[in-house]
C-alpha cells in the first residue's frame, strides 16, 4: 500500500515538475507546480510527517502559488503563450542529467538500510521549535518581516507629482 502510494506520488511529483519546466504556458506551469507540490505533501504523509504536509498545503497552496499567479496576472504580456526555453536548454538538459546521475549514484552507493519511519508528535515538534530553536525561529520571523517590507518597497509605485 505504501509502495503503491509512494510510486503514485513520486510519479505525480516528477510529472508535475517536468510539466513546470516544459509547458509553454505560465499558468499551466503554475498549475503543474501546485500539482507537484501537493504530491510532495502526499509524500510527507507517507513519511508520517502530517504536520509538514499540512504546512506544505497551507504555505504553497494557500500562499506561494497564489502570489505566483498574482504576479503572472500583473505581468501579463502577449508573449506568455509563446514563452519557451532559452538558447541554453540543451546544456541545461545535460546539467540536469549529470546532477541527477551524480546524486543518484551517491545515494545508491551510500545507501544505508534505514527502513523504519518515525512519527513525530506535533506537540514535541512545537516544543522543540520554541525552545531549542527559538532563536532561529525569531530570526526567521525577522527575515519574513524584512521580506514583507522589502517587497512593499520594491513593488510600490512612486506617486508622480
Amino acid at each position, binding site marked *: 500500500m505504501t509502495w503503491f502510494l*509512494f510510486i503514485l506520488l*513520486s510519479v505525480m511529483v*516528477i510529472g508535475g*515538475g517536468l510539466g*513546470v*519546466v516544459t509547458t509553454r504556458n505560465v499558468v499551466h*506551469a503554475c498549475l503543474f507546480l501546485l500539482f*507537484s*507540490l501537493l504530491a*510532495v505533501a502526499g509524500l*510527507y504523509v*507517507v*513519511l*508520517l*510527517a502530517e504536520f*509538514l504536509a499540512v504546512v506544505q498545503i497551507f*504555505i*504553497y497552496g494557500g500562499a*506561494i502559488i497564489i*502570489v*505566483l499567479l*498574482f*504576479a503572472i496576472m500583473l*505581468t501579463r*504580456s502577449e*508573449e506568455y503563450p509563446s*514563452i519557451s526555453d532559452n*538558447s541554453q*536548454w540543451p*546544456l*541545461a*538538459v545535460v546539467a*540536469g*542529467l549529470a*546532477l*541527477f546521475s551524480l*546524486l*543518484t549514484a551517491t*545515494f545508491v552507493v551510500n*545507501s*544505508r*538500510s*534505514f*527502513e523504519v*519511519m*518515525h512519527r*513525530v508528535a506535533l506537540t*514535541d*515538534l512545537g516544543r*522543540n*521549535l520554541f525552545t531549542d530553536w527559538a532563536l*532561529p525561529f525569531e530570526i*526567521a520571523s525577522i*527575515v519574513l518581516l524584512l*521580506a*514583507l517590507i522589502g*517587497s*512593499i518597497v*520594491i*513593488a510600490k509605485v512612486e506617486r508622480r507629482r
Partner: protein
Amino acid sequence: MLTLMHFQIVSAALFSVGLYGVLARRSAVLILMSIELMLNAVNLNLIAIASFTDPERFTGFIIAIFVITVGAAEVGLALAIVLRMFRNRGTVNIDEIELMKW
C-alpha cells in the same frame, strides 16, 4: 521495502528537474517556480532523512520548516522584483535583461 534511498532518488530527480528549469527557462516567474521545485526537493530529502533516522530530535523537520519560511519570503521578494522589472522594462524574460553585459 521502502527505504530512505527511494525518497532520496525522488528528491534528486525533482531537484534535477528544477535545476533544468532554472537553467533553461526564459521567464523569471518560471525560474522562480523551478527554484520552488528545488526547495521542495531539498525539503523532501530533509524530511525523509529526519523521518528515517532521527526519532528523538527534530532537526530535519525544523530545518524543513525554516526552508519553507525562507522560500515564502524569497517568493514574495522575488515577485516584487519581477513586478518592478516588468514595470520598468516591460518584460519578465531574463534574456532580454542584460544590463550587465560587457
